[in-house]
């Protein structure tokens, strides 16, 4: 049997047309033109560089030498592989493209799905075990980022009232760490939860509420976020999505932009799920303490009055919150039960911003590289 091939001696850049004569103990390479023997490679020293899956014509070499024998004809490669065991790799058929694409495409989809599931479920399990001190420090630094330049309200009785209710709600939710409510003077009408049980309320929100039960509703909603560790979960999920995107895009910097859009959408979807959970827990906690639970839905109605066009339902998947009307319907409860705040407490809360003082700057160096996603605002 004679196989035609190209031989490079590894010393100069010349290609030689050769024929190959396989024998039991050696491969004889013979010049195609004048039949002179070019090289004799012992069978035990033959190696195939690469494989037929990647190389179109995997080069054959003698171990430790730079010479190469390249056989472009697949049929001849197969024959050679059949005769000489060390060259068996030359004969492997090239994997068919379509089944491979189907196999790896399906595996990839499954791997991405599994990864996402692991992040989605895993973050829920892991979040409570993140050391509390770490959560609190993270929360403090974000608080400074988000509301650091606005003064904090100092009304002692008001702060005691809202922190007292927050602690009762935390106990009802079996939240094992202390919670800390601060009130920032000014707007917007909002409240948010940070890692480490830190709740920030804006005084404009307190001004908008008609009675203590509405404020209690908002506080219970925020405690829902605290009890579910939503802030830490959100961070963990975002980190997970980033890792997945990095792996999927294989390091195209431009893809970062598009990927960021995708991960933002996922974060917002998370946001809507978190809000529904927090709404449900809010009503549950208030009812568990025997308090009036109608404040939650009444406050949402107040928001709707203030802004009749609900942005959440207009922008749909781009919203971090579910449509307000849906939230009203889900949280509507009868006006039964005890009031959350006494008249004196409510009065103190209304005037909690009588005296103010700026937030002391957080320790330098504790700043996170990226701000928290706004998942846990009101």
């Amino acid at each position, binding site marked *: 049997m004679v196989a035609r091939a*190209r031989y*490079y*001696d*590894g*010393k*100069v*850049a*010349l*290609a030689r047309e050769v024929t190959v004569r396989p024998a039991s103990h050696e491969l004889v390479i013979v010049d195609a033109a004048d039949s002179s023997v070019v090289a004799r490679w012992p069978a035990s020293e033959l190696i195939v*560089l*690469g494989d037929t*899956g*990647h*190389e*179109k*014509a*995997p*080069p054959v070499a003698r171990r430790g030498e*730079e*010479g*190469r024998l*390249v056989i*472009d004809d697949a049929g001849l490669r197969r024959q050679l592989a059949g005769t000489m065991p060390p060259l068996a790799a030359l004969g492997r058929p*090239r*994997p068919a*493209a*379509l089944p*491979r*694409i189907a196999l*790896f*495409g399906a*595996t*990839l989809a499954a*791997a*991405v799905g599994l*990864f996402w599931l692991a992040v989605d479920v895993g973050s829920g399990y892991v979040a409570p075990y993140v050391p509390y001190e770490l959560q609190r420090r993270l929360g403090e630094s974000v608080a400074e980022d988000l509301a650091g330049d606005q003064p904090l309200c100092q009304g002692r009785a008001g702060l005691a009232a809202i922190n007292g209710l927050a602690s009762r709600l935390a106990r009802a939710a079996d939240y094992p760490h202390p919670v800390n409510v601060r009130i920032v003077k000014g707007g917007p009408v909002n409240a948010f939860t940070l890692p480490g049980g830190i709740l920030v309320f804006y005084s404009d929100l307190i001004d908008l509420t008609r009675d203590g039960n509405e404020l209690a509703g908002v506080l219970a909603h925020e405690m829902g976020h605290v009890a579910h560790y939503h802030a830490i979960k959100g961070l963990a999920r975002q980190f997970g999505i980033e*890792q997945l995107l*990095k*792996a*999927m*895009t*294989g*390091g*195209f*910097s*431009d*893809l970062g*932009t*598009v*990927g960021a859009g*995708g991960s933002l959408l996922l974060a917002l979807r998370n946001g809507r799920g978190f809000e529904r959970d927090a709404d449900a827990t809010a009503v549950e906690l208030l009812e568990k303490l025997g308090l009036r639970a109608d404040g939650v839905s009444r406050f949402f109605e107040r928001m709707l009055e203030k802004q009749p066009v609900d*942005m959440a339902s*207009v*922008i749909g998947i781009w919203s971090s919150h579910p449509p307000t009307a849906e939230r009203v319907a889900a949280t509507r409860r009868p006006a039964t039960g005890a009031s959350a705040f006494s008249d004196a407490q409510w009065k103190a809360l209304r005037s909690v911003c009588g005296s103010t003082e700026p937030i002391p*700057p957080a320790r*330098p*160096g*504790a*700043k996170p*590289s990226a701000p928290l996603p706004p998942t846990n605002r009101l």
Partner: protein
Amino acid sequence: MSDITPWGERAPAPQPRPTPLDLTPSRPVYDGKLGELYGIYLRHLTLMVLTLGWSRFWGRTRLRRYLWNHVSVLGDRFEYRGRGIELLVGFVLVLAVLGIWAGLMWLVWEVGFEAHAIPGFGFMNLFYLSIVFIGIPLAFVGQYAGLRYKLSRTRWRGIRCGMAGSAWAYGGLATLLNMANAVTGRLLTPLVSVSLARPRISHAFFGTQRFDFAGSAGDIYGRYLGYYFLNVFVWILAIGLAVAAVIAGGMQLGFTAEEVEKLVTAPSLRTGLLLIAALVVLYIVFGLMILPLRCWWQAYLLRYLVARTRAGNVLFASAISTRQMWGFMVLNYLIVVLTLGLGWPWVMHRTLRLIARELWIYGAPQGAAIGQPPQRGPRFGEGLLDMFDVTGF
């Protein structure tokens, strides 16, 4: 006929006629199949997800092996013999260097900043700032080092390629030139392009055969200035058209001055979204007018750089057109971005087919005179390149 010239000098003996140079044209041949490339790529992506990205060194190596071995010049295929572990080691080394850098920055922080702290400026801020500062030069260093690594793992006719010169010198030069170009309103672009192409081409070698580059910025400055001012003109035209369209459109719809004022002073989310949509449309319109110009220049530059490159007696030329450059720069970009990266093999396939169609090689190397290069090339892979994510493949 006398041997003496009219000036009384002896005429030179007639020289033997030089053998005519072999300038037979040929083109590289690419015979890869998109389906096969996708099979390899999807396997790579699957492993990437399962190993959280750590398999990328091996995946990249496999892709290169496929691409290299499916390109042949003068009937001889390229061979890529890099190994994933080499890329991994290069990456880990760079991580270690960054660790040392972080330690250094920590010392700077302790000595320089701790005493008189700036509120809101922490150690990590200092570290990131320093990374941004050294990142640009390092990316250039990485580009050069990456090219060196890839060439050193590339063989043709059994002979290794390689790259001489200092990656650090290239990094410094590239940083300086790009900075100078930025502060002169990009008027130095031809100088930058030619000065950065020169080390990359003339330091490359195939075996003992060096490449030569005979370009000079002066050759292409005229064309560049034409492109530059045409570009400025088109921008002004596009902006003028856009402003006119907005004003005319506004009047047509009967907007009053107060309404416009209200729109600007109290924008709602809806107007914000509309505005963003309008900006995207404008961006695309601008792109349609300005990108072809850009492609025209890039195609010209590439043709110039290729034509001024030589390897011994082998000459090169390219006839790449503006339209093909559009396909290369714009279409390829859109494919990768719109498919979230899944279109990458398609782009690679398109690129190699373009090279096979538009790169002309005149003559053949004098193989007997080209030996194996004395140096072996770097032991580890493109760590820096990997770090700063500027690698194509």
